[in-house]
């Protein structure tokens, strides 16, 4: 009886602690809700639209392929390109998934096989296009009956190149946000913030001084993951390492700035960890790491565009698998840099306020 009473007392104490710890309670109730909404409404495994670029010498050919594509059960976004080169440039930049070169004999279909799930879906569509192109009544030249499909960037649509290259971004997000989120919270929890305040440390000194080592760590970590990916999984590295290093630096900066913001908001390390987890969840689900970005509804894509990981995944996959050029990387780096600046500014304002409040 005594043991039961003691267990009940302990349980009551736990309930009181739980109810009064609003951050933990919020996480316990909030995370499942976010998961439910994201999985339920945002995540789709197959895209509803297919972006196709047609290269043809005659307008009728474009119109015929377009008619067929639009008659399908999926929404096709069809455009034409003046040359195969410009169409392939669009393919490399990820602006289109399929290029149909109706001028070639036999006709060729170039498929971006970077994402195995999306490319598998696209192949189903392509087979229909192939049949359409091969219809003898519509084409004068017999050679168009044979169509050659060329899988680009990830021949065989292997899963590993796509997932492992993306893991660089995911691992960096998780570790860097978490590590920087713990920095100031740890100082406060251990009492060393009082010493720093007595040294009259300024917010920007604290922010830069604390995050600089983690920026280097992020670069090192990114390099290590890429090296292991190359050696253990035979992941290609077709683009420039300098571009990857520059992008990793900006991406790491954005994650560190966000983590530091969490650190200024959290009172203890546990809260900082909870905030990190809360950010990590939508990052992994809405960035295109696990599920095709293009398959998500517009609102989810808008949310995804705000996440640094979304843009970094495009960069890392683009550089490693498709050898994208610097202009593409810069275009994707801009939103990451804007995120870094906004998070950094918010972190500095919050840090100033926190330092004014003083030690706990």
């Amino acid at each position, binding site marked *: 009886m005594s043991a039961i009473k003691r267990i009940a007392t302990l349980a009551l104490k736990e309930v009181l602690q739980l109810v009064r710890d609003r951050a933990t309670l919020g996480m316990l109730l909030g995370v499942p809700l976010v998961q439910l909404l994201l999985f339920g409404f945002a995540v789709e495994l197959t895209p509803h639209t297919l972006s196709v670029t047609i290269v043809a010498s005659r307008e009728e050919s474009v119109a015929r392929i377009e008619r067929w594509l639009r008659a399908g059960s999926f929404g096709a976004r069809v455009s034409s390109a003046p040359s195969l080169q410009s169409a392939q440039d669009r393919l490399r930049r990820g602006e289109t998934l399929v290029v149909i070169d109706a001028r070639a004999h036999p006709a060729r279909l170039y498929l971006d096989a970077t994402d195995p799930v999306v490319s598998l879906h696209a192949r189903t569509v392509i087979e229909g296009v192939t049949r359409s192109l091969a219809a003898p009544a519509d084409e004068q030249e017999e050679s168009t009956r044979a169509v050659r499909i060329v899988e680009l960037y990830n021949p065989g649509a292997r899963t590993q190149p796509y997932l492992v290259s993306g893991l660089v971004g995911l691992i960096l997000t998780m570790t860097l946000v978490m590590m920087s989120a713990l920095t100031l919270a740890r100082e406060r929890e*251990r*009492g*060393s*913030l*009082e*010493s720093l*305040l*007595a*040294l*009259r*440390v300024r917010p920007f000194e604290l922010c830069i001084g604390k995050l600089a080592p983690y920026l280097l760590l992020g670069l090192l970590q990114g390099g290590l993951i890429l090296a292991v990916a190359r050696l253990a999984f035979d992941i290609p590295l077709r683009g420039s390492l300098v571009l990857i290093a520059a992008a990793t630096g900006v991406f790491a900066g954005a994650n560190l700035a966000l983590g530091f913001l969490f650190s200024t908001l959290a009172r203890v390390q546990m809260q900082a960890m909870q905030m990190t987890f809360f950010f990590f969840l939508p990052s992994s689900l809405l960035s295109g790491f696990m599920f095709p970005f293009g398959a998500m509804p517009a609102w989810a894509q808008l949310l995804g565009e705000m996440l640094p990981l979304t843009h970094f995944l495009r960069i890392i996959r683009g550089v490693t698998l498709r050898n994208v050029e610097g202009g593409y990387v810069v275009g994707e780096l801009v939103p990451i840099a804007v995120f870094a600046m906004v998070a950094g500014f918010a972190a500095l304002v919050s840090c100033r306020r926190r330092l*004014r409040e*003083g*030690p706990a």
Partner: protein
Amino acid sequence: MLHTARDAVREPVMTLIAVSRRAGGRVALADISLVIRASEIHGLLGPNGSGKTTLLRILAGIWLPDAGRIERPGAPLARIGYVAQRFCLYDELTVSENLLFQVSMRGRPAASVARVLNEFSLEALASRRAATLSGGERQRLMLAAAMLSEPTLLLLDEPTAALDTASRRSLWSLLRREAARGTAVVLTSHELADGEQCDSTTRLSEGRLADESR
């Protein structure tokens, strides 16, 4: 008359005029005026929650008052040494690394580290990680860190709270030595015995000045 003669020797290093501060929605300090003098050990006494630590942090410049004025004729912020109640240095760093960090942040010459290591008998512990030090050794390390800036004002929050009798004796002798050198020393304590060792005391109660003695 004697009082005036002593005050003439002991120049004010810091003066607080009608200082107030709120914390956590309540008044932590109300209308406190205080003069801290060179070569004097001043005790801020009172029970827990009376506002001692708040006042000490205001003296250290860690917190700003909500109202009132602070004059620092003899204690610029760079020459204030502060020893918190909790150990507030870094466990992962060695004794000398902790001191080098402090010296570098204060913009003082690295040679100061050797000086304080010697002065506080920490040479033998220089390469030991702070985490492995005893309570008394940690206290000495924090004092050594505070002395790196050759302070004109040394502030200590409950310095005797976790010390045994021998360590207390040693601490008091060290504080008297510093005061004799001209340093103004302010410490907080909730023990009357500590007050008796001070040259002057201010007793706080619920954030207000309850009593002063010299």
